């Protein structure tokens, strides 16, 4: 993770981070003007690269696939528009349907990348406590899901690999139907195996005293810095909701007469990109403050400090 984002993460409470992520998801959801969504995508992509670089390629492949599938589906289903680019039998590809597909594709991809960021930065404890504040049983289901989805994937992969060592025949010697049958059997085996792990986590919740939880919400410490950040995010939230109600940053999606307006779009692009890049910007400001002022005035002039400076 980039050190500017680490700085932001260390200086803000986990609840503020959660609010930031909700704002990012909302920004990805609210608008569909392609100029705006592309700028949002670029900001999200920069943040994702800086936050969790190691999984970026596999996620890029996945989101590209989703993008292409969305366009294809939209082109097939939405046959509106007059400027025909291509016609194959009954399928008519028009400029409008292609544009509609692209808009939907980018919106989808933006949502995927905002959840990539969410996954990389969210603290399980905050979500768990928010949920347990509302519905205790849903909180348990949430935590079990968080713990179990990776475990079930691991069990599936492990069992599939291990089954190779038990067979005396090679996998490709089986017929197609037999292989499908084997996959169905495998799912049953995986469910059986998962139950044991499920019981262990449930025991852990008991050991940790969740059954007799006294507090509905854990303590969250707020600093002045948290206040400033949350204030900025709230202003952005209000701004976005307001702009969305006024239909700024939106196109008449799905129509045969698709109009892309770029007037008055700059404030929206600037605000939303800045809000997505907020951790990098605040981390950067902190870094400059520390280099140029903080380290020189607030700490003694020792060799260790000089090195850090």
């Amino acid at each position, binding site marked *: 993770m980039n050190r500017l984002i680490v700085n932001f993460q260390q200086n803000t409470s986990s609840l503020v981070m959660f609010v930031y992520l909700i704002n990012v998801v909302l920004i990805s959801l609210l608008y569909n003007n392609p100029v705006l969504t592309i700028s949002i995508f670029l900001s999200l992509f920069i943040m994702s690269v800086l936050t969790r670089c*190691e999984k970026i*390629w596999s996620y890029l492949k996945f989101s590209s696939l989703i993008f292409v599938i969305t366009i294809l589906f939209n082109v097939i289903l939405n046959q509106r528009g007059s400027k025909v680019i291509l016609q194959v039998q009954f399928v008519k590809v028009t400029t409008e349907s292609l544009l509609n597909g692209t808009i939907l594709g980018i919106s989808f991809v933006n949502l995927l990348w905002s959840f990539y960021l969410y996954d990389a930065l969210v*603290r*399980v*404890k905050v979500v*768990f*406590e928010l949920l347990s504040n509302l519905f205790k049983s849903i909180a348990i289901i949430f*935590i079990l899901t968080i*713990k179990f989805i990776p475990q079930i994937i691991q*069990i599936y992969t*492990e*069992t599939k*690999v*291990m*089954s*190779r*060592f*038990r*067979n*005396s*025949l*090679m996998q*490709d010697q089986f017929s197609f139907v037999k292989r499908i049958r084997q996959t169905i*059997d*495998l799912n049953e*085996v995986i469910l*059986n*195996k998962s*139950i*044991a*792990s499920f019981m*262990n*986590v449930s*025991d*852990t*919740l*008991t*050991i*940790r*005293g*969740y*059954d*007799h*939880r*006294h*507090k509905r919400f*854990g*303590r969250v*410490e707020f600093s002045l810095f948290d206040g400033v950040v949350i204030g900025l995010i709230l202003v952005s939230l209000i701004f976005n909701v307001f702009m969305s109600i006024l239909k700024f940053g939106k196109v008449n999606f799905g129509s045969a007469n698709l109009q892309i307006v770029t007037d008055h779009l700059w404030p929206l692009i600037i605000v939303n990109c800045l809000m997505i890049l907020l951790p990098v910007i605040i981390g950067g400001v902190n870094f400059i403050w520390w280099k140029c002022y903080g380290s020189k005035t607030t700490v003694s002039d020792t060799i260790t400090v000089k090195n850090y400076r």
Partner: protein
Amino acid sequence: MLRFQDYSFRYNNSQELSLKHLNFTLQKGEFITLIGATGSGKSTFLKQLLPDLALGKINSGQIVTDLEKTTDNFAYVSQFVDNQMIMETPRDELKFILDNQGCTPNEIQLRITEVASFLGIIDLLDREVSQFSGGQKQLVNLASALILKPKVLLLDEPTAQLDPVASEKLMQMIHKVNLEFGMTVILVEHELEWAVHFTDRLLIMASGTIVLDQPISQALRKIFDDPQYRNYLTQIDRLYLELGISGLKLPLNNQQLTEVIREKQSELQFRVRPQLEGKTKPVLTASKLNFRYSFNGRKVVDNVSFELNSGRSYCVVGPNGMGKTTLLKVCTQQVRQQSGKLNFAGHKLQKDFYQQMFVLPQNPAALFMKETVAEELVFQIKKSHSSKELTEILKEFSLSGLEQKSPYDLSGGQQEFLALALGFIKQPQLLFLDEPTKGLDPNKRIALGKLLQAYQKAGGTIFINTHDLIFAAEYFDQVAMMFDGKLSDFATPQEFFQDKFFYTTEINKALREIYPQALIWKDIQYFES
């Protein structure tokens, strides 16, 4: 502080009693170690003090105590290192526990500071748990248990998944808690190696009853007379008792053994092990294997080359997280190497490679695919076109009577033997085992060693990863160490361990100046008259 009176317990899903007429008294500040065969009821016994963990019926008797049976008084640490943490960082985990207790923010801050400084985990507090080694995870689990200031600490095989160095550190920490706070400790273990010097009282459990309950010194002498439990003794005490020497109070430390053996040196000799002669054909050849999990990640397997010869056994030792399991996965093609070559019987790996080998993974349950033990074995017999009989296999692998049980309901040791039985039915040329002694009691470990020797005698080749240095020293022809992705050269156990300072057996540490090649108690004998 607590008394079990004629206590019997049965699980809801079982017809049999898991605990039978137990009588046991616990004194404040005691360190009690409980040993016994796998499936003897040790964990069930511990869970009686936190009834939410063991759903069943008390059939007779009662537990007499003034303490309420809740997590405020009894803290439990299990052997499942990975499933014990709910949150992402130790700080969140500790806060979560204290929030559940309704602690004030000031109290939370103070308690986390105290426990983290005491256990030396301050640096770990804000790191993600997923990056921790097994030893670090278990230290965090211990912190989670201690943060509630319990009266009794219940430890269920806490070292089962740890390497020797991490196990020793954890036990020292537990001892410190016991000594400094007078906290009562009940430790369930498969072996006494790490706990023997801290234990006040030793308990042995068999088929749901306590068959021995004595102070440690007397208990050690008593179990030496019982062939069923003799193998539980530490190597140091075993050698002392086997040589028939008396006068010292058990348990002995390495220094005491050195002195005793020095005095008796003229009557003793080192047992020279027979060496396997001649070179056999190579079965698997690995050349410059490399593997890493992420683009910029460290090389988990770093330029590893070796050769496995037919009819020989190879063992890789090394601390947790140093690439042993990944190397095994690369060799068995569960993951593909990024560079380097693997040859099987002199040729590039063919599609039938999987049919010539068998892997026993760390979690043997990963191999199971059927509802009962009998179905598993019959399925494998059919798949492998084997002529073996079911009853014959059940007997050979100590699984008689378990035919109709679900493989997932078996104890760790029984699961290991069932998985091994599946492998032996297949009759592979090459057998890979990943930490096969994990969770096995010493008798089962010996039985496993003998089964592997028989397989090797029949021409099979074995490659294993283990933390168990005694197992490595006793049953394998060649040993190597893996550290930071690098594999050292294979050497005979005597050659390999004799110049090791920390990573060697206790007998070797104690007697390296007298008998540098002695590794296990069997290596020192009286001269035959």
